[in-house]
């Protein structure tokens, strides 16, 4: 426990002394990389989600790629606009987490992909977005098509199915991506703690 606290204060210390220039996104190492042109595994940095050619539309109707927040720590999860229970909780937790970041929140971005690609139009996403008072510079709600949605869920290890009444059964998992898009850690929303997440952020 004490060790944790020491480690944590070290982390906070390093975060504070780290040059703020880092908050500017670095030049992407390989822009437009798809898994089609990747070198053999040995030379491959490995598991960046950004190698997937996934495209979405965000809450303001803009086309964005999965790597829209390349260069930042990104919190990724899935939800849908009319979701009655777990999605509001998810959003609340993420907002609390953002708040707990203080100044460091400039380094963090939030990307939420909807399960309901048929119904969650940019307008609907925008409504929820504004209801929660999110900052469009740091948050994005996006939707893809059926294939992209399924692939995104598969990449994040999220299970889901559409129900007859138009809702979705889904697992609620929060994924942290590092600056290159590699999965750094994952939490079930229920067990998601802001403190631990902060600790994860700048490893």
């Amino acid at each position, binding site marked *: 426990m004490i060790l944790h606290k020491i480690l944590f204060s070290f982390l906070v210390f390093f975060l504070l002394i780290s040059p703020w220039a880092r908050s500017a996104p670095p030049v992407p190492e390989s822009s437009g990389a798809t898994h089609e042109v990747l070198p*053999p595994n040995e030379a491959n940095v*490995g598991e960046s989600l950004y190698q997937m050619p996934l495209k979405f539309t965000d809450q303001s109707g803009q086309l964005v790629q999965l790597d829209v927040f390349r260069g930042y720590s990104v919190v990724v999860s899935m939800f849908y606009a009319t979701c009655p229970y777990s999605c509001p909780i998810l959003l609340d937790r993420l907002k609390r987490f953002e708040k707990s970041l203080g100044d460091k929140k400039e380094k963090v971005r939030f990307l939420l992909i909807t399960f309901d690609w048929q119904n969650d139009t940019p307008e609907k996403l925008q409504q929820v977005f504004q209801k929660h008072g999110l900052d469009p510079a740091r948050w994005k709600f996006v939707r893809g098509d059926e*294939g992209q949605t399924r692939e995104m869920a598969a990449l994040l290890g999220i299970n889901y199915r559409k129900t*007859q009444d138009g809702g979705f*059964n889904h697992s609620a998992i929060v994924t942290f991506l590092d600056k290159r898009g590699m999965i750094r850690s994952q939490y079930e929303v229920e067990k998601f703690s802001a403190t631990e997440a902060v600790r994860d952020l700048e490893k």
Partner: protein
Amino acid sequence: MVRVVSHAKSLLLFVALLVSFTLCAQESMPGMAYISGGVYRPFYPPSEKEKEILILSFYLDRYPVTQREYLEFVKQKPAWRKDRISRLLSDKGYLKDWSSSLEFGPLKKPSEPVTQVSWFAAQEYCEWKGKRLPREEEWEFVAMATEVAPDGKADLAWRERVFKWYTEPNKPSGPGEVGKTPSNYWGVYDLHGLVWEWVLDFNNNLITSDTRGDGNGDKNRFCGAGSVAASEKEDYPTFMRIAFRSSLKANYTTGNLGFRCARSSLAESMGQGTQTRSAESRQRGEKK
């Protein structure tokens, strides 16, 4: 509400019938069986309302994808060679039984089903062919047919035979060649008895709307309460398939897990939830 639902149902049925008739007149897809659709009663209905699921007409590959076919894919799409594929898209087991990146080797027969492939790989293969993976309910619907009837639930001898395969250990010599046993009612081979197969929505295994609505999640499906709720208590093979699928992640590979492709028929291309992807990936799929 009920009336609306039943109206919607009969409308859906009407569309399905209409489409079926239209398609009867169409030419068949090479290597694929036409499945005219029908009602699928899930072994474990995901909800009260889903005890009967209407399956629209579609096409399904007659055989699982073979070693030879998959080799062709890998040759055309080098990113899917085992020395190039990203770990994101497949675990280390990817084609590990092949003798090299572009050979399956002398231990495999060309017409054996390909295994050691991930969901991403299976999905990409099907897109390359202009197809998609079958949905779980589509696969299960076709798999409940015997040689002579679309629904084998009442055919105890057939069920016994299917059950036997699921209790046998994997043969060290590999699964064997496709098409060595009779096809089923739809003209589809080897749904049972050769390999397990990927489905499009392998990751659909959850219970109630929104995970918070039901703290038990998967447990309901697998522990005591779940199995009592199952509609066909003796249908262990279906139960095993559900359990197996729910244990998978999209980049997993195993030595007895292969796949076959499906294709939507007219009803779906008219907008009933088609499987489409980004422009690039579709282009890649057409680069045949």
